[in-house]
């Protein structure tokens, strides 16, 4: 009972601290690259939260009220479920399911459903377009991510995330399967629609799926996006960078360091790169990324042969 409560606290803490870290790192990256002088990158997210909190909520004509209110909550819940799968050390894993990798693979399509629902239920054209556009891309992300994740579970001979971490004791998957991590990170940017892959909430759609929401609903949605990015980084760190494995420092410290490393990488990339046209990225995803994911899988299979 105490252990369950502790695990719950860790996941909730990770949600809060992780999202705050995302906001700080993103603000810092923006300040460095955009050469704007923000007052203080550490306080800025708090000001932003406060301003979102105080803005009155918006509504549209005849939205699907249930779905509209629920979608951000669902998205955040899926991010939290993803964070719960992250193993911190051999002895502390909030949820150690024997099919953890598959559950993570299931969270991605479920997140897609939540994003679609968020855009569709507002009953307005820009959110609808964002949702529509996202789903057409989401299917390709899911496939790529599936293959890459099967790739990491091959050397582990298990679908358990802790077993995947343990299988990297000699060699991290990022070296053993060099294609895996880049592909996984592209999927991560896609599913949390960040930076160059922000197709669902992009500026050319007036913020797409969230263009009709404001105030606390919007805050929750942004919170979910940041949390999803953290969950992706943490799972990526476990599946490719050896999770808790590392010298000197205790396991959880390594998990945090590696997660932060991936987060910084993703956020800087997000600030640096322009948005492609969705049409072009769709072609890229099916013609280049999916075959690369196949290659990764074959590579992993050949490498895992005894």
């Amino acid at each position, binding site marked *: 009972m105490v252990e369950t409560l502790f695990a719950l606290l860790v996941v909730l803490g990770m949600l809060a601290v992780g999202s705050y870290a995302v906001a700080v790192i993103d603000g810092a*990256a*923006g300040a460095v*690259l*955009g*050469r*704007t002088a923000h007052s203080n990158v550490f306080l800025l997210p708090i000001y932003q939260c406060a301003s979102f909190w105080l803005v009155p909520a918006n509504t549209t*004509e*005849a939205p699907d009220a249930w779905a509209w209110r629920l979608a951000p909550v669902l998205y955040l819940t899926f991010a939290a479920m993803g964070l719960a799968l992250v193993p911190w050390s051999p002895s502390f894993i909030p949820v150690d399911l024997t099919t953890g990798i598959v559950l993570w693979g299931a969270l991605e399509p479920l997140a897609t459903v939540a994003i679609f629902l968020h855009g569709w239920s507002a009953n307005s*054209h820009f959110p*609808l*377009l964002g949702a*529509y*556009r996202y789903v*057409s891309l989401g299917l390709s992300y899911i496939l790529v991510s599936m293959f890459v994740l099967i790739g990491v579970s091959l050397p582990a001979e298990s679908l358990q995330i802790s077993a995947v971490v343990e299988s990297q004791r000699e060699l991290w998957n990022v070296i053993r399967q060099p294609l895996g991590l880049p592909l996984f990170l592209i999927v991560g940017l896609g599913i949390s629609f960040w*930076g*160059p892959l*922000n197709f669902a909430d*992009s*500026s*050319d*759609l*007036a913020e797409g799926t969230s263009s009709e929401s404001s105030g606390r609903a919007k805050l929750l949605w942004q919170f979910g996006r940041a949390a999803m990015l953290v969950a992706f980084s943490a799972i990526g760190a476990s599946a490719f960078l050896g999770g808790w494995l590392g010298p000197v420092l205790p396991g959880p410290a390594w998990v945090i360091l590696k997660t932060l490393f991936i987060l910084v990488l993703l956020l800087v990339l997000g*600030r*640096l*790169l*322009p*948005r*492609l*046209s*969705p*049409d*072009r990225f769709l072609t890229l995803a099916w013609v280049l990324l999916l075959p690369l994911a196949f290659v990764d899988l074959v590579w992993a299979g050949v490498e895992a042969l005894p």
Partner: protein
Amino acid sequence: MMGGKPYGRAMAMTADDLRDGLQLDPLSFSVGPFWPVLPPGFSAHVTLHGDVIAEIQVTSIPYPVALPAIFRQALEKPVPIAELELARACYHLRQLSHALWVNGLESASLTVLQRIHALQPGDSLAGLRTWLRRVGFFFSAGAEKGVLGRDQAEKIGGPAARAAGIAQDTRQDDPQYQRLGFQVIYGHGSNCRARWQQWLDEAEQALSLAARAREQAVCTSDCDRVETPRGVMGRGGSPSDATFVLQELLPGLEWSEAIATIASLDLAAVSDYAEEGV
């Protein structure tokens, strides 16, 4: 009643499809005039098939744009070329910064806006150009779309026409400009990428002209016509609105490409009044 948006509500009805003949339900709605991505005052009625624009009808043309006062002064008396060209460079860079913002490069857009405030004659834009090339801006959404026909390019005038290969620039007739070694930049192509490059090139050329003109303290000599960043303005008239080009240009483009195309074109008429407070 079927289809369209009766009483403001979108209703389902199939319509002919542009792509492969599968007749699906179009989505009709209005955009503008309160959307910072579009030129101020511009609004249109759009019909989409999925993400592809089937039809666009301009319902309100953008407000005329007020140019810096120097361009109007150039029609009354000779003005220092250095000042004129600096204003031109700022104008083009502001357009470019908007295009960067639309294509998801908010940081770069802010950087460019900040550069504008501290822009000096003789500044080099090579760093900016290299950076934009490295991050792939010239391959971002819409880069190869928005191809103008020759008629359309002529109608729009200004940098868009020069990018499309029409070597028209009043400055080449001005002996003072000739003394500074002015040569028309033209012919990048008629798509969005070409127009982005044209802005960058013209801004860079304007800055180097400004530097030379400041050294030699040259003023314009032709007071009948002036080449504004939007096109030729003379005693006869100023560049007029060309928004209707969009009605031919946008159908068939994807939404993001269409928005990038709108951001790559400067279509508003030139106002009779100059920008205030400059």
